[in-house]
């Protein structure tokens, strides 16, 4: 069919399979997608501008609301940069607490993705099982911080309150029970012919395209690049724990699913080691008390990269010697993962386009900021 007869179709921004507010303008030849153009910005709040107007410590709540399903990964990312800029050291205990919380957040984020991806492909059951497990994680977050999702647990110089015995017992319970439950969820998805036929060999992303588009995280590792910031530039205490980076060389939907499931197992491995190794010590550096914090000034520019559940999450802070940051720039991994969608969803069926966009793990709080 000549391109003048292609039908234009509008998806979203309020479509159930668009994971938030993604709008896709698709040009169709019958059921084949010929061109696709993502339209974003429906959740844009300009967090970068808000960050320029508030003190260093107060910015954290805006970072919580970026990747709202794995909020503590964002907090770690921001604090890596902010603490370097302000020259504030944190104790060993805080480092271990942050690793535990970041990894539990990663599991929670991947569980939301696994459930939602099942929904994308028409499976309702895994969704409930994923959310039952996630609920246990949210109970742990409530125990340590008092809040469920947007926890605002960490602060410049440490964490707001020490991790309690009860929380550690709950984490131990979770570590003990979760592998079996994860296996159940995994089998629910993988022992289903429809799921396999809709993921295997579909949406193949090759290595060079992925790197050129700045794709990172599980998507890049599913395309055969062994790049994980936790190994490439270890922050906190990731160089003291033993874990592997799952890599697949297929680059299709199924590879991305498998990599994410393996990542959950590796995260659990890290948490298991961390709760044994966590040392005693202060949970907060008194140098960063709130009253002092207002007078604390940062100068120079710092870029810190961390591995969030979606990929390389970078925060670039420029300070001019004032009490507020001069410029904050966030490297959103999902924005780059989304920018490769027009390449991936070329000449595929409409239904496959949904199957592909599901594996990108889109969270719009982070894309639009």
């Amino acid at each position, binding site marked *: 069919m000549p391109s003048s007869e292609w039908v234009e179709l*509008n998806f979203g921004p309020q479509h159930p399979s668009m994971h938030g507010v993604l709008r896709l303008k698709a040009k169709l030849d019958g059921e084949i997608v010929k061109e696709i153009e993502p339209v*974003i*910005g429906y959740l*844009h709040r*300009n967090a*970068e*501008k808000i960050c320029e107007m508030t003190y260093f410590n107060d910015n954290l709540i805006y970072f919580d609301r970026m990747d709202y399903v794995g909020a503590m990964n964002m907090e770690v990312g921001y604090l890596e*940069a902010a603490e*370097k*800029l302000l020259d504030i050291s944190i104790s060993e205990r805080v480092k271990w607490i942050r690793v535990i919380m970041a990894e539990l957040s990663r599991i929670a984020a991947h569980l939301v993705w696994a459930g939602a991806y099942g929904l994308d492909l028409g499976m309702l059951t895994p969704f409930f099982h994923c959310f039952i497990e996630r609920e246990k994680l949210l109970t742990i977050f409530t125990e340590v911080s008092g809040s469920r999702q947007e926890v605002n647990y960490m602060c410049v110089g440490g964490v707001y309150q020490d991790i309690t015995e009860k929380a550690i017992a709950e984490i131990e319970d979770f570590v003990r029970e979760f592998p079996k439950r994860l296996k159940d969820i995994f089998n629910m998805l993988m022992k289903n012919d429809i799921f396999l036929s809709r993921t295997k060999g579909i949406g193949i992303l090759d290595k060079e*395209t992925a*790197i*050129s*588009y*700045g794709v990172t995280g599980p998507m890049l590792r599913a395309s055969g*690049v062994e*790049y994980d910031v936790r190994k*490439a*530039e270890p922050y906190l205490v990731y160089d003291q724990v033993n874990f592997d980076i799952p890599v697949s060389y297929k680059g299709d939907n199924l590879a991305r699913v498998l990599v994410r499931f393996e990542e959950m197992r590796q995260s659990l491995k890290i948490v298991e080691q961390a709760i044994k190794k966590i040392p005693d010590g202060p949970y907060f550096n008194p140098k960063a008390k709130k009253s002092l914090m207002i007078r604390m000034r940062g100068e*120079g*520019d*710092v*870029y*810190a*990269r961390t591995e969030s559940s979606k990929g*390389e999450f*970078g925060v*670039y802070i*420029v300070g001019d010697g004032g009490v507020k940051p*001069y*410029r904050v*720039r966030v*490297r959103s991994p999902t*924005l*780059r993962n989304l*920018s490769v969608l027009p390449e991936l969803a070329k000449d595929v069926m409409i239904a496959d386009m949904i199957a592909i966009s599901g594996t990108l793990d889109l969270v719009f709080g982070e894309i*639009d900021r």
Partner: protein
Amino acid sequence: MNYTVQVIGESVGKDGRKIIKVTKENFLDLMKDLKNQGFDHLSLITGVDRKDFMEVVYHLHSMKTNEYVVVKVETRDYKVPSVAGLWNSANWDEREQYDLLGIIFEGHPNLKRLFLPENWVGHPLRKNYDMKKTQYINMDEEGNDYATFDERGGW
């Protein structure tokens, strides 16, 4: 890391990353040089509004050797050559910086706003942006957003 291009200076930042400062004329040649030397991953493009000039910061990373380098270029007329032809990720990054800071990337294939509606007045991340003026967003017949100062024209 060797490059033949004349640069203004090299330094090491607070986070231990190497910073190269370059003039706007030599900028594109330097970026091509770095791309050929294995910096295959353009991590981030940042515009920093320094009030009388605009500083554009490029974070480059090599997937193979895990090297990191920061390139800084200053511009007074808010125009910088585009690097979208070298790295595909620059396409959306430059659109975002154009949207929020008004930096014009010369040679960009599709320099449109990324987040805000096309007729939005001003660039919000500029230091002199007037935040007291409220703009309202509505949708036209085509389904595209547009901005208006009229309160009744918004949602």
